[in-house]
């Protein structure tokens, strides 16, 4: 099976501290892969390498046959990679709709002059806005965000913000979706909503999802495969059950409680 996203032995260090040491993994279209590991294991660093925020010093990152390591973030995004963030990086002063419309940035064309000249509904910039607004409304319906459509997202509750962030990533119509602790801070109910959405996203759009999550139940329900990191190294990979039982993982991550 050829993977849509393939990470091959990437390594990166910051000021002599090695953050990643030859991490490899692959995600295929329609697959959910989870990345687990204790804090500081380098999970988010992997994400940052993929999205171009960091440039790995070793190894390759390949999307659909094209090497992307070293590309700047917006170039990576152009190749169809969207992500969410651990601590929510929304555009706080914009409305939900505008946040999602920003997700459509890549698919829109109008520049400064067209933007300034927007006057009636028939000028190109306005037509484009309306077209993409329709797409955004579909996502709003899908994620149940109708009630907060026009709210400033900075005023929304934490859980809703996480959903808006997911919506923004979806608006990009990505081929690969990177979710950094999407369920963190959510209650059980919200987590279940989220799980259904993620499953639907995979089913409907056929994206490849790479996910960081601490909640092993959540991971077990969603992911086909799990990769465990510790101190920047892959210590285990396989099905959730396999990884959960892996002795290295137990030692580094789950601790004695889970063994018992």
């Amino acid at each position, binding site marked *: 099976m050829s993977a849509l996203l393939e990470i091959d032995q990437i390594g990166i260090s910051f000021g002599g501290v090695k953050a990643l040491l030859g991490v490899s993994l692959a995600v295929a279209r329609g697959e959910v892969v989870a990345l687990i590991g204790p804090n500081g294991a380098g999970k988010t660093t992997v994400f940052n390498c993929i999205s171009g925020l960091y440039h790995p010093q070793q190894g390759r990152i390949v999307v659909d046959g094209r090497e992307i390591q070293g590309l700047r973030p917006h170039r990576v995004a152009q190749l169809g990679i969207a992500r969410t963030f651990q601590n929510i990086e929304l555009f706080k002063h914009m409305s939900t709709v505008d946040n999602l419309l920003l997700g459509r*940035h890549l698919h829109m064309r109008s520049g400064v002059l067209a933007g300034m000249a927007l006057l009636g509904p028939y000028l190109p910039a306005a037509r484009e806005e309306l077209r993409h607004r329709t797409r955004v409304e579909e996502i709003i319906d899908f994620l149940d965000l109708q009630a907060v459509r026009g709210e400033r997202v900075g005023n929304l509750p934490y859980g809703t913000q996480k959903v808006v962030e997911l919506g923004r990533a979806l608006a990009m119509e990505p081929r690969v979706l990177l979710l950094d602790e999407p369920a963190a801070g959510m209650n059980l109910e919200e987590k279940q909503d989220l799980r259904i959405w993620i499953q639907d996203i995979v089913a409907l759009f056929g994206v490849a999802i790479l996910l960081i999550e601490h909640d092993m139940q959540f991971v077990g329900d969603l992911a086909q495969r799990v990769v465990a990191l510790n101190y920047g190294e892959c210590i285990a990979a396989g099905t959730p059950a396999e990884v959960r039982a892996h002795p290295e993982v137990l030692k580094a991550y789950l601790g004695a409680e889970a063994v018992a």
Partner: protein
Amino acid sequence: MDMKRSYYEDLRLFDTLPLSLWLGVAVLALAAAPAVFGNYPLYVIGYIAINVIVALGLNVLVGYTGQISLGHAGFFAIGAYAVTMLANAGLPILPALLLAGLIAAAFGFLLGLPALRLEGPYLAVVTLGFGLTVETIFAKAAFFGGATGPAVPAFDLVLVPGFSREQNLYLLIVATAGLSLLAVRNLMHTRVGRAFVAIRDSDIAASCAGVDLTYYKTLAFAVSAFFTGLGGGLFAFHLGQVDPTTFNLMLSILFLAMVVIGGVGSILGSVLGAVVISLLNLKLKGLKMADFEQLPLIGHELAGFLGRNFMETGMANIQFIVYGTILVLIMLFEPLGLYGIWIRTKRYWRTWPF
């Protein structure tokens, strides 16, 4: 509340009927002004309108993109000098103005490049240095007319036949301000403006959503500089003079004050800020000893006290105290600036008298 029938209504300029009506009235009033008013009110409105253009431009940078600039007097100067020299070289006024804006935009782009990685005080110092450098270069180079600057050619554009030079100039300035208002407002509601705001709120997320930070940050500088340069170009005709010392740090600070006092990241705020600061600037006068004498009860005593302890010749400086106090008070009680006060007033009126 939400009675909109199509998504376009979110984009439309005037979302309510009363607002459209009032704006119509304002446009008509401004257009009719030259027929009614003498030179002086036209001068004041023109001065305000120029500042509105600059405040809009600066707000694109400061308010929407979240970058600070203490050097916009530099772009203003570039616009003024460019118009003057292009017009002196024989270019008609309208193309000269447009070109001046574009030249300023080009410099904005250049300044935007080093500013890419800088923020806060660092950006403040770099832009401050830019403004000072521009001022110094214009003042020093014989090519630019040295200490008194180049002579500004007569304003010979006729928009309405039969109108005087001042009236035509007024119309051009106000029309340009109106168009700038529209342009900036529209820009902020579409793709590019959204990218600016996104960069301000989270540049990392914006870049991961496909926004090219380098391009849009420098673009914000260029757009901002364009409007500021345009304002500078109009200012050259409005004042009839380009003197390098006019474009000093105080002017940059004045522009910044307009944006912040008006309301960062708000179109209406830019207008309100420009109006208030311009009027304070032109209208604020110092007090005289007689003003204190006239106060009831304590007047005489107070005047005596002030006479003993302060310089009567320095009494005009009370205007600085008033000016400063107004700035402090607005910022203390309404961090959103005049725009915030406007919002509150609106809310108050909506529920009045309850």
